């Protein structure tokens, strides 16, 4: 199969040529400082994230162009993506919070996916300055120019805090403080089915459970950010240490997709846990043919 051979060559050529550039195989956990703009230090992760984000915005704008009723090809691609994501997230978030939460979720997914995959492009993490000790003339370090946004812990913390803040705003708007407090601390037992003493005892239990719940909510930003950072940074280290071995390269393509999906899915689950238990059961009623079709396509 000539096609397979060409594909294999396409993978191998960048892989083997980049291995020559790669430094000692150790990726620093901290993003390296490139230059200052005024008093603000600019790291390589920041610079990469600006460039990739700008390219992403321009690319989507160029694809969609001027939105039309009969979509152009590019618009159809973007609409397909958005409708597929809607089919996945609508049953989780619930119909009420969906109009506000959905743009955020699409944005998270595409942003994180593109930034994860930007770490797999040729030259990322392998071209840069070498630091030479002036006294001895030995190499002491290597500063890559390009480093993906999600392989810097600061970047993923920013994403996780955005997710947490948006969660709070959406929950306050669509559930309200009363429902949130009831959801956390309130007694969900049925008063008519239980004797009074037991009901009040259960209230105490629910109160204690609520305290645990609050702690678990407060560590959500930490777990979200560390999970994304750990996966992407671990992937970078793996690739550098194995000289960009093709098998791991494909593994990292998969990990980038799965982690973007997981981040978005967890955000939507957090929103849905509080907002999604009214009378709207988006996933049970198959009344809306449009959305069930989108769901089938997404599966």
């Amino acid at each position, binding site marked *: 199969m000539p096609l397979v051979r060409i594909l294999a060559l396409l993978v191998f050529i960048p892989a083997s040529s980049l291995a020559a550039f790669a430094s000692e195989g150790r990726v620093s956990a901290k993003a390296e400082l490139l230059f200052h703009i005024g008093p603000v230090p600019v790291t390589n992760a920041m610079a990469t994230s600006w460039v990739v984000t700008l390219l992403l915005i321009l690319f989507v704008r160029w694809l969609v162009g001027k939105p039309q009723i009969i979509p152009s090809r590019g618009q159809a691609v973007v609409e397909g993506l958005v409708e597929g994501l809607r089919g*996945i997230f609508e049953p*989780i978030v619930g119909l009420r919070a969906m109009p506000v939460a959905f743009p955020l979720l699409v944005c998270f997914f595409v942003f994180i996916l593109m930034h994860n995959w930007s770490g797999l492009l040729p030259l990322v993490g392998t071209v840069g300055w070498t630091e030479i000790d002036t006294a001895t003339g030995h190499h002491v370090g290597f500063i890559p120019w390009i480093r993906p946004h999600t392989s810097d812990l600061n970047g993923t913390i920013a994403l996780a805090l955005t997710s947490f803040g948006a969660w709070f705003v959406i929950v306050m708007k669509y559930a309200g403080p009363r429902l949130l407090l009831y959801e956390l601390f309130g007694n969900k037992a049925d008063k008519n089915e239980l004797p009074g003493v037991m009901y009040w005892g259960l209230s105490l239990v629910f109160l204690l459970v609520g305290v645990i719940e609050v702690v678990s909510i407060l560590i959500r930003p930490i*777990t979200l950010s*560390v*999970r994304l*950072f*750990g*996966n992407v940074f*671990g992937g970078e280290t793996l690739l550098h240490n194995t000289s960009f071995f093709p098998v791991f390269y494909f593994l990292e393509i998969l990990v980038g997709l*799965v982690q973007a*999906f*997981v981040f978005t*899915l*967890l955000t939507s*689950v957090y929103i849905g846990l509080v907002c999604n238990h009214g009378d709207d059961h988006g996933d049970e009623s198959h009344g809306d043919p449009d959305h069930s079709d989108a*769901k089938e396509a*997404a*599966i």
Partner: protein
Amino acid sequence: MTGNIALAMALFAAACSVGLIGFHAVDAVGRNPGASGKVLVQSILAMALAEGLGILSLLFLK
């Protein structure tokens, strides 16, 4: 050679749980192929939560 037995145990447990979730997800899809989309969402979520603990320990256990 140096190592950290606590870290090894944490990662071992995380790997085991991810494998277990995958095993049962495949089992469930085998029984009911129509539900593959729903099972995928649930299993990826559970995997992320299990693996998150492993990564937390990888970063914070020193």
